[in-house]
């Protein structure tokens, strides 16, 4: 297993190219709906083409990514992706790519199965109503599950590079915070008595004086029934905390290790970027290496400003020169104007995105790589599509390609 040197840990200049060559884990984080899954796949694909043995773990349950990777379905086990297609495109893949879908729903279940002291406890927990809700639905549990899986893959597999796509977060760093908060709570004395309480009845007086009062107040608020159910739930977990804790500590170590790089994936809109900036700051605070940003779906301006104000009549002449035959001159003029309107509208979006990106680069450490991927007119459904993004991401990472390109064919 190769553990590459950690030259760019915490340096702001660890761009994607270096991360792909040097790191063992790349974690893609960012707000929802920005294309994290796709970007993760592209990063993994590029690393594989460059010669590394790569595993990409996605959390996207849709089959789309599977389809674009050329397999019918991705499961909880890694499956190898055929890259022969690239040979046909004139590029011989130097490494290999495997992909898997993280089963978030059952990640917690697996944890329980691994750590439950006996079958009875295991069944009790898995059947508990609170548990069912906690383990699948609450903020933080998905993030926690993703980190759990990363731990497993890191410790037990020998991929040279693991690219991890993470669930969208609302509290930017829930995937780090949730385990921490959970374990702080477990460590607290309050938890302790709540865990023990189910063995005794509320108000029986075995518990210390202060605690009795606390329980009384809590019971008044929630009802004794609720408190009993809830502490039974915590009680059933109590045999497993040690195992949980050990893993949480180890996971945190892995994340702050210097063979891990985080990339913040975002859209170019202000809401997403604000979250991305916050995420970046928090990662730096936690002393976790941020490689840089990937900004997806950046609008392009197709034409330079003066053309937007050009005389449409002149454009009609050029349309005709292209062999465009309109029924009437009036129609042609209207079309020329509409083409201008359209280009002007894209120009507004492109300017908006540029302004946002400029704000971003002002607000991060100088030299922080900001990679850009343009907004395409079609969706990605194939390896070729992923490859198109790849060439944008790794070929032209500093400046957006001037928009002479024929639009959007992936």
């Amino acid at each position: 297993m190769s553990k590459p040197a950690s030259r760019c840990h915490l340096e702001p200049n660890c761009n994607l190219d270096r991360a792909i060559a040097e790191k063992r884990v790349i974690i893609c984080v960012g707000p929802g709906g920005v294309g994290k899954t796709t970007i993760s796949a592209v990063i993994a694909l590029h690393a594989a083409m460059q010669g590394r043995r790569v595993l990409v773990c996605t959390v996207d349950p849709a089959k789309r990514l599977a389809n674009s990777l050329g397999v019918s379905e991705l499961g909880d086990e890694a499956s190898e992706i055929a890259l022969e297609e690239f040979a046909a495109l004139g590029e011989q893949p130097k490494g290999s790519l495997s992909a898997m879908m993280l089963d978030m729903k059952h990640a917690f279940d697996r944890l329980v199965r691994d750590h439950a002291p006996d079958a009875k406890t295991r069944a009790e927990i898995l059947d508990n109503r609170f548990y069912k809700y906690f383990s699948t639905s609450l903020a933080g549990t998905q993030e926690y599950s993703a980190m759990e899986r990363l731990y497993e893959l890191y410790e037990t597999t020998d991929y040279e590079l693991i690219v991890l796509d993470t669930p969208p977060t609302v509290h930017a760093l829930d995937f780090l915070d949730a385990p921490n908060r959970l374990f702080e709570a477990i460590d607290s004395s309050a938890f302790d008595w709540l865990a023990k309480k189910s063995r005794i009845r509320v108000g029986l007086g075995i518990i210390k004086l202060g605690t009795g009062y606390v329980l009384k107040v809590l019971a008044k608020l929630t009802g004794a029934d609720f408190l009993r159910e809830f502490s039974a739930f915590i009680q059933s977990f109590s045999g497993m905390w040690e195992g949980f804790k050990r893993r949480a500590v180890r996971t945190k170590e892995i994340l702050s290790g210097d063979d891990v790089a985080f990339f913040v994936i975002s859209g170019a809109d202000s809401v997403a970027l604000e979250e991305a900036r916050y995420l970046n700051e928090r990662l730096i605070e936690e002393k976790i290496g941020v490689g840089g940003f990937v900004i997806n779906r950046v609008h392009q301006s197709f034409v330079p400003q003066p053309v937007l104000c050009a005389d449409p009549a002149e454009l009609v002449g050029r349309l005709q020169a292209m062999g465009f035959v309109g029924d009437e001159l009036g129609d042609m003029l209207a079309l020329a104007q509409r083409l201008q309107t359209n280009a002007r509208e894209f120009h507004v979006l492109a300017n908006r995105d540029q302004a946002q990106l400029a704000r971003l680069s002002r607000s991060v450490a100088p030299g922080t790589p900001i990679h850009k991927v343009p907004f395409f007119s079609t969706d990605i459904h194939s390896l070729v599509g992923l490859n198109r993004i790849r060439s944008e991401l790794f070929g032209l990472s500093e400046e957006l390609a001037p928009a002479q390109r024929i639009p959007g064919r992936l």
Partner: protein
Amino acid sequence: MATLAPSADERIDPANSVQKLYGQKKSASEETQLITRSTRRFRSRSGSRFVTIPETTPKLPHEHRFVIVAGKGGVGKSTISMALALAAAKAGRKTLLYQFGTQDSKTKTPFSEATVGEDIVEIRENLFAVRPSTESGMREYVLLKLKSKNAYRLVFENSFIKKLIDGIPGVNELIWLGKAFNHEREREHDGSPTWDTIVLDPPATGHSLYLFQVPFVIREAVQSGPFHREAVEMIELLTDPERTALHLVTLPEEMPVNECIQLKADVDARMGIPIKSLVVNGVFSDLFSESEVHALNTLRPQLEEDGGIIDRLVAAGLFRIERNKLQRSYITKLHNELGLPVIEMPQYFVPELDKEVLADMASRFLELPAAQSRETA
């Protein structure tokens, strides 16, 4: 109570009136359901007597009391909730925009310079906003229930308990939800509700609606006590089609569309919160006529990578045409699979979200019946 009495029209065929309003074909079983529900009794505003009103009184998205805006992150959920709140305020309803804030996050809205934080502020005529923090929400809730500041201080400000509560996943969200319910229950001296409309903009974590499952879980897990009663009341509100309306928000793109379809299935199966409409954000307007689309497409093979001005203009046009076509196919899919009234919001070509954009969006909610019946015709 004149305003609550059903008009002659509405009484004739409530199912049909829905169809008229939203242009949806209802199945036979849905019709039966609507008719049965239409005789449900609701407490009148004064709270003193019951009146019978038809459930199908056509209501616009902002005309319910408890309006929930849901969707994945990045689809413009917060924008839509602001637009809905504005629509309600413009219609003369006293409206509360209820946002989710993380610890000490404050924000401004395009409406005014007022900072929205944990205290309710007026941001426009009839329109108020709040972004409760966990701590204030918790204190408010506990004091309301316990009526003892001492107990709150001793128990909830105790560092052990604090840690415990912080460690329970989702507790922030739960407190946020509980406070929203309290606002719904707020009454003036004369017994009328303090808020005509409360627009909830829930956190966009995973499916934001998992949060609304909490009362259902509690109701099942505990059979009695204050939490049980609270949960039952919450569920009554959440599933009451007269007071509560859920609006899904999505983008006309592959992933958001699929997730939206999944979200609706989840809500229907697990919660039964009445979903009243689907808002599709960022729809590119059709700029080119059919013949123009055809003509531009025939130019495609001639376009050159480094072409001149006209090549680029045509390329931009073709880009728009392709996106439009893709968006249309997703909107059609949503129509076919969800059977919900679809409200399209255009892509706005502006440097940033401003008052004008929100006003335009709000007007689309306010003019909905006209637009929808045009579509039906």
